[in-house]
């Protein structure tokens, strides 16, 4: 695009300008734009730099957090809700031993191992609840239903089954759960970084 038409974007100039002053005027304009631009870009750049700081922050690496003891999870195949307690750092504040989320623990009849399900709905992240009358989980937001084992009950707005969490039985009877969160709304279970 020629210089003139570029100028026409802003204003329509008479095209019969005198020749000699033009070069000087062009330099002045260019210099004004450069100086003004640099001056303005400085706070803008500093602002963008700081505003993008959150991209640099990473969630704490997933670790096994103590949830409860085996005695609290009877082998009746009915899930129970437990709080996951952990130290948590929120920007400048450090919280010691705070509930940071919830899991459902469930033990089948006669089984030793415990299944853990994240209480976060895979659809859009609401808190999935137990529907005791129907022996299933139900999400209050868009009514996704899941069996006690966590699998989808069709038809369901949720794209996948409830997210199972890795679960360990420690020697002292404590149940620990690997605390992870996953992207919602997608068919695959993808861990959030």
């Amino acid at each position: 695009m020629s210089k003139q038409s570029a100028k026409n974007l802003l204003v329509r100039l008479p095209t019969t300008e005198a020749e000699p002053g033009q070069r000087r005027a062009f330099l002045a304009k260019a210099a004004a734009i450069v100086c003004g631009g640099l001056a303005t870009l400085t706070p803008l750049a500093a602002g963008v730099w700081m505003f993008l700081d959150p991209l640099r922050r990473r969630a704490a690496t997933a670790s096994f957090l103590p949830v409860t003891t085996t005695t609290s999870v009877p082998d009746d195949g009915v899930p129970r809700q437990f709080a996951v307690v952990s130290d948590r750092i929120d920007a400048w504040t450090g919280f010691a031993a705070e509930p940071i989320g919830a899991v459902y623990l469930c033990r089948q009849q006669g089984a030793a191992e415990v299944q853990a399900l994240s209480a976060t709905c895979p659809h859009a992240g609401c808190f999935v609840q137990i529907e005791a009358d129907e022996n299933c989980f139900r999400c209050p937001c868009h009514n996704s239903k899941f069996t006690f084992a966590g699998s989808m009950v069709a038809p369901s707005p949720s794209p996948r089954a409830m997210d199972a969490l890795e679960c360990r039985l420690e020697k002292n009877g404590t149940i620990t759960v690997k605390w992870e969160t996953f992207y919602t709304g997608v068919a695959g279970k993808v861990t959030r970084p």
Partner: protein
Amino acid sequence: MSTSMSNSSKQKPGLLGQLADFFDDRTGYRKLVNELLFERVPGGARWRYVWGSTLVFAFMTQAITGLVLWSSYSAGAQSAWESVFFIQHEMTGGWLLRGIHHVMAQAMVVLLALHLMQVVIDGAYRAPREVNFWLGLVLMMLVLGMALTGYLLPWDQKGYWATRVATNLAGLVPLLGPSIQQVIIGGPDYGHHTLTRFFAIHAGFLPATLVIMLVVHLSLFRKHGLCARQPIVRSDGMFWPDQVLKDAVACLAVMAVVLGVILLPALQAMLAGRPIVPGELGAELGAPADPSQPYAAARPEWYFLFLFQFLKVFEGWGASGEFLGAIVVPGVVMAMMFLMPIIGRWNLGHRFNIAFTLALLVGIGLLTGMALNEDYCALWVNKSSLAEAENLLKKTEGDPVKLSAALGGNQAQIIAMQKQFKKLEAIRNSESFLAAATQAQMDGERAIELAGRPERIPPSGALELVRSDAKSQGPRLFAQHCSSCHAYVDPQDAKASEQLAKASAANLYGFGTAAWMRGLLDPAEVAGPAYFGNTAHSDDDMVSFVTQDLTDRDTWKLEDIEAVVVAMSAESGLRPQQTAADAKATEAALIAKGRALVSDVERCGSCHTFHDNGTKLGSAPDITGWGSRSWLVGIITDPTHKQFYGDTNDRMPSFGKADPGSVPILSTQQIELVVDWLRGDWYRPAVSKAAR
């Protein structure tokens, strides 16, 4: 070039051109831009016209940086300081952004003064521009209001105490004062709502008003055109690009100065070979606001210092003086400025306005200089020339009768001497300000060190962290409650003997270390000022034991004594760093030998209970765990307990014991702070700040 241009105007516009036409047809923006840019500048572009534009630029910078700061700032008594700490020390580029906001605010005040001066000198307030001048004054007050309210937002000691003064002055306004004050600070006292309100005023009310006023100010400016410097000798120029270029260069220069101020310390560090810590650049952050901790270094920002100094003129006038200095005089000055366009109608009046403005600026400059001189004169006044006066002052205690006697009644000399006394007092005041400023800086650095712990700041806020920090609170509590008797001075220190002579109880420096114990067991020292010399124990059993029994080399060989020293310092369980100097302290065999000697009922154990040696309490302190945390807490809580001095206790108060119904002198937490400080038990960052 010319051909391409004339051709292009005939060509059908390109895609972008068509888009531009589309929008122009519907908005007429070309005309607007045309009007904005193609303004005649009578007499040509000049540098003296740039100030208004630099102010607009500065405001725009503040808006951009302010909005981004807003995105990370949390207004609340337990989160304001903390979030600013996070911005300054943890977020990428936070130091730069906050630095720009902080320094540009100051630049804005300077630019305001320049703009005002240019307008007054050029008589740009005269008809028909009166209203625009008044608008300008309102804009100035809005900017100053933003400066004032912004100072409080980090909620550090400096801003907190300086703003308290300002809001208390607002309370002096007749009738409405107290209500205004209460509304501004959001209640009867400072707290959450002070911050939320100041923030709303700083980032909402004031800037919104300012934007509206600015739009009117600028459109009026365009309506009247530039008020050209008279007489016009040069040919006219165009706003674009002639004046815009000058404006842009000026804005860039302002930005460069701001960046220079921020980055200068980095350059200095680089040249000195010190590491550059970004968090230390830009705006500083003091210790978190603490209403219970005095802050002797409280001063307003430098551009308000003149007011601060001006108020001192009225000292001794009581409340009416403050009212006069803080409300009446500034009010009259503002009124005078609002009247300028009227006064300026006459030529003489215009001259008066110029003189008034210059006098005002000179006065402000002088007052600022005086304020700075009062605070910092100790740095440049040579005290040695006042040595004679200092001696005389000590001798006469400033008593005029004594002074006259000392100088033989020579009136001239007396007056000269009194002048010198005044100077001395000024220096002393300055010294205490500087000491307070140094202390404030140390407190600030420590607070930031604590906030950077891996555990982060507790939900109760950083103040909690500072208050429970032995390193910074220990010395304060010690100075308040212990130092009237106890010294705390490194015996190797040059001034040690001077301080020890003043003390009337043991020197607690290094209490619990082998060095301390070695001194106690040294016959030359035990009855000296660092140990029992100045106490009621100066001639008791312990002293005679050390001076007599311990000097008997048949029963006490030198290596036995050393074993006791090592064993006793092991009892204290001090930080390994402190005892590391004494590598022997880790030698288990030596400790075992020492313990046996201490325990021995024929030796130390004949008076002292030590672990399970069976000696009954009452004759001497139980030295099990001597110098350990619990032992020290115990003795400070109640030295009269039979586990310690019992009824042979000298003057030491039972700091932690109170009669039923009353409170002890020190809380358990305070005692623990003193103990932890004495023992050197405090948080140390794993990696030094520099290495980070």
